[in-house]
């Protein structure tokens, strides 16, 4: 991963340790020290808030900037995340997705990135390490084209600590794909600009509207960059979504991240036994690709949303967005939380889930926790319940 990021020639990398992203910036540190990554300033900052702030400064000074974080770290930089997107700075950040405490937990789920879903960043989710590599290269292109920051989310430990074969694009190819960064506005003594002015009620809504409009433009830009990437590198860029056997599917499972590999296997097995099931991977979660999701879900009578996070007290996050895409149809949506805090999401469980939905053992529109130890929670609820 470090090598893939290095091929994009970032000029400022801000690093602050947090598991499980740390080895990416460690790798970059080595690459800078050995001179493999030239003209790059590797900053050891005092916090994630400092890391994002340094990237903001560097990006505003006109250089390609990168950092990586996870979990508590992304929360600690939350204020700066909104600032980076509001200022339109094309920073790229890896999020090695990890749960958020309390209780403290260092393992994988998507609570961190989901907590920042409305921070104004483009959010791309990688299904595999190869995709993570490819998405980083694309992220810089998308970010700089739109002048918006992009986070590339990859499942902590599940992907970040897996050793798998990955093709890292060659430097000349990346150079050709990713031209030098030309900032939209830059701190330059020869042409002084004020960046970050205070905007009052008379113009704030307009600024936010324009930001939304840029995000909607990303719905065209993300697939365009993915197609360009595929053309140059010969690997299919997933673009906004990656449908798998959804064409004639009666049941479609919607998911993000590394669980997609397992889901595709499960789909193959179930197809073998005659169940018309497919998977829709969401690569681009922000902006939310309503049209692309709708196109893939048309024809499905049941949609199962499997996600590694949820909105406490409200329900499914991805499920709510998915409902936008099937609005006005009779499609039933099943909201499933799986893999919280590093619990493995196994193929066996996913197979069981699809069976349960088909057999109506699970209700639609009600949050379902996969592999929940029901005895434990029921005992606790009984103990803590009303006298």
């Amino acid at each position: 991963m470090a090598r893939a990021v290095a091929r994009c020639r970032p000029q400022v990398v801000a690093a602050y340790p947090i598991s499980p992203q740390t080895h990416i910036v460690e790798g970059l540190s080595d690459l800078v020290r050995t001179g493999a990554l030239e003209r790059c300033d590797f900053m050891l900052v005092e916090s994630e808030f400092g890391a994002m702030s340094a990237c903001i400064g560097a990006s505003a000074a006109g250089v390609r900037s990168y950092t990586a974080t996870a979990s508590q770290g992304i929360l600690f930089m939350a204020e700066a995340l909104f600032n980076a997107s509001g200022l339109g700075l094309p920073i790229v950040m890896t999020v090695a997705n990890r749960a958020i405490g309390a209780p403290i937990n260092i393992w994988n789920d998507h609570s961190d990135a989901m907590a920042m879903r409305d921070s104004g960043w483009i959010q791309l989710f990688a299904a595999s390490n190869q995709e993570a590599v490819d998405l980083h290269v694309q992220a810089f292109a998308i970010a700089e084209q739109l002048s918006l920051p992009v986070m590339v989310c990859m499942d902590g430990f599940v992907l970040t600590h897996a050793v798998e074969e990955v093709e890292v694009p060659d430097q000349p190819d990346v150079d050709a794909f990713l031209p030098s960064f030309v900032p939209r506005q830059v701190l330059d003594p020869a042409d002084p600009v004020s960046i970050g002015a205070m905007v009052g009620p008379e113009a704030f809504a307009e600024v936010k509207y324009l930001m939304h409009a840029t995000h909607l433009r990303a719905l065209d830009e993300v697939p365009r960059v993915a197609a360009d990437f595929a053309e140059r590198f010969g690997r299919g860029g997933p673009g906004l979504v990656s449908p798998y056997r959804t064409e004639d599917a009666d049941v479609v499972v919607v998911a993000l991240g590394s669980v997609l590999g397992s889901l595709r296997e499960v789909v193959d097995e179930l197809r073998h036994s005659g169940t018309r099931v497919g998977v829709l991977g969401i690569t681009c979660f922000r902006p939310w690709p309503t049209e692309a999701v709708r196109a893939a879900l048309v024809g499905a009578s049941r949609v199962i949303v499997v996600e590694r996070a949820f909105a406490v007290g409200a329900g499914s996050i991805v499920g709510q967005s998915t409902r936008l895409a099937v609005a006005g149809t009779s499609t039933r949506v099943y909201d499933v939380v799986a893999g919280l805090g590093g619990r493995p999401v196994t193929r066996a469980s996913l197979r069981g889930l699809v069976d349960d939905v088909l057999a109506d053992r699970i209700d639609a529109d009600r949050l379902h926790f996969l592999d929940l130890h029901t005895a434990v929670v029921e005992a606790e609820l009984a103990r803590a319940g009303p006298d």
Partner: protein
Amino acid sequence: MTTQELKLYQVGTYAAGNRLLPVEDRSVQSCPDRSNAITSGHRACQGCGEVLGARYVLDAAMRATDGNMVTVNATGCLEVFSTPYPESSWQVPWLHSLFGNAPAVASGVAAALRASGRQDTRVVAQAGDGGTVDIGLGALSGMFERDDDVLFVCYDNQGYMNTGVQRSGATPGAARTSTTAALGPTPGNAFGQGKNLPLIAMAHEIPYVATATVANLRDLEDKVTRAMSMRGARYLHVLVPCPLGWGSAAHDTIRVARLATESGIFPLFEAERGVVTAVSPIRHRVPVDDYLRLQGRYAHLFGDHPRPDLVARIQADADRAIARFGLLGDTDTDTDATPGTEAR
């Protein structure tokens, strides 16, 4: 570059009249082609010490860098009154990000300049005391220990004035703020709390630390010039009276600042790599009463129910500072005249 007519009143100062000096010794501000980094039309209050300090700091830094400079600003009065969109008072490249991250943003700018071979472009960061001693301290300490090539300037008005005069870690003992009311047995801010950021900065052993006030503007310019002649992390702490927050008359800003130094409450000194290298001796020592009585935030110490005990405590603190820095010019600490002190 636009210029403006500048009225320079020097009432009650001991500075030589600028026009009597040779051209090379005249202040940056007296120069008709000064950069005017923060130009007129901003929304600062009448008598604002901060905007006065900022103008002198930035114009001096612009001269020292031959105009090759960018600035980073924390959230606060200076940011709010200078950039009401779509207007901006800044004639220098200026970046505002957040309240607590100006040092880290400035470090990032410096890193970008270094990585892209533009080290000739220098970075000056500015914040109020809240953004410096409280919410920004972690980032500032990081900037210091990495020795990033940034001059960080704190305009210290001893409270959160932008949000309505709340107590900060730089608010002095007994001072009334909206969160330390003049009520109860120990009215105003508690004693023995708060942070002395110049000393904290010195503990990082950075190349340069200095204090200044807006009453000693030539001194301020000199210290900025000296700071810009160095590389690495540098820190300048400027006392800037705030008529609104201090309850002082707008026309007394300079006088209050001067009394802060002449009473020993705010020592002027310079330090390099953690060692004090110069202090500005007190010319005419005054009791702290003279300083306190000009400010409504200390009104509860006088009036109908005076608190001479608290005034005595403030006096004792001032006496300690005078002894510590040798401000009466009779100790070894007061070294030979060096650029940037009034001792010349």
